């Protein structure tokens, strides 16, 4: 039954296995489980969730930075300090 489905979908089992091994290493959630037997569907779901989480974190950080930059924009001395710290 599963072989028939994979032939219809056009994605080989090889690719799916490759997918699982590759993504499993990347996603911290899956690294923690390490049960050794995660389905491709789970791996993909966790990957999508992880990317969405990362996007959300970047948005939150942008909000934080916007508040912080507003306060330091006026003070050019601090800006110089920050730049020198980063270089």
């Amino acid at each position: 039954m599963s072989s028939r489905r994979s032939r219809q979908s056009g994605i080989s089992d090889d690719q799916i296995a490759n997918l699982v091994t590759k993504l499993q290493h990347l996603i911290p959630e899956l690294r923690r489980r390490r049960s050794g037997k995660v389905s491709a569907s789970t791996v993909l779901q966790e990957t999508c969730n992880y990317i969405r989480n990362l996007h959300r974190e970047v948005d939150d950080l942008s909000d934080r930075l916007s508040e912080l930059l507003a306060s330091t924009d006026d003070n050019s001395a601090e800006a110089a300090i920050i730049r020198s710290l980063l270089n």
Partner: protein
Amino acid sequence: MVDSLFPTIDTTDDVASPESRRKRRRISETSKEAAESSSEAQRINEESSKRWRTNRVQQIYASKLIEALRRVRQRSNDAGKITSVAREIRDTADRVLAASARGTSRWSRSILAARVRACLKKHKKAKSKGTRKPRKDTAAERRRVEKLPAVERKLKILGRLVPGCRKVDVPNLLDEASDYIAALEMQVRAMESLAELLAAAAPPSTTLTRP
């Protein structure tokens, strides 16, 4: 002194030991072919994650981001536009991240290309969103997509999440996704450390809501 501001991320240890353990288990369990392909995949993963995990990369990104943010603020102040600052920052951060990839990945090229298209549209004063191809999202198409097996559906979702990868085939989508994830993680770390820097440098009178 700068090094202390960016905590060393000792990921090489994290990545090496569980992977070498898994590698040994894999080679004993499966056939040689499968072992070769999985170690190959791990090697590619390590390469792309090493690209984005060095401290140097993070520092370079952080300084470029600050420069770009100042330029953008200057420009928007002069133009007198009232755009959401957070949105500006997000867009700038993505642009600098894409630029750091130096055109080697599809998602980075897509981010930069999308910005060019948006700029051209604004200059042309196009009244309609005609440049964007209308999605042939008929009901029949939607039914077909819903009937696909779960894996295929999720692959499509993944393709939508990674910029510019809607019609990419599975192995390339995997490479793009792994590179994109590593880059996003670096972006988060860099912005996080920048925020801490600014919070420490800001005068204590500003009320900051720390989560």
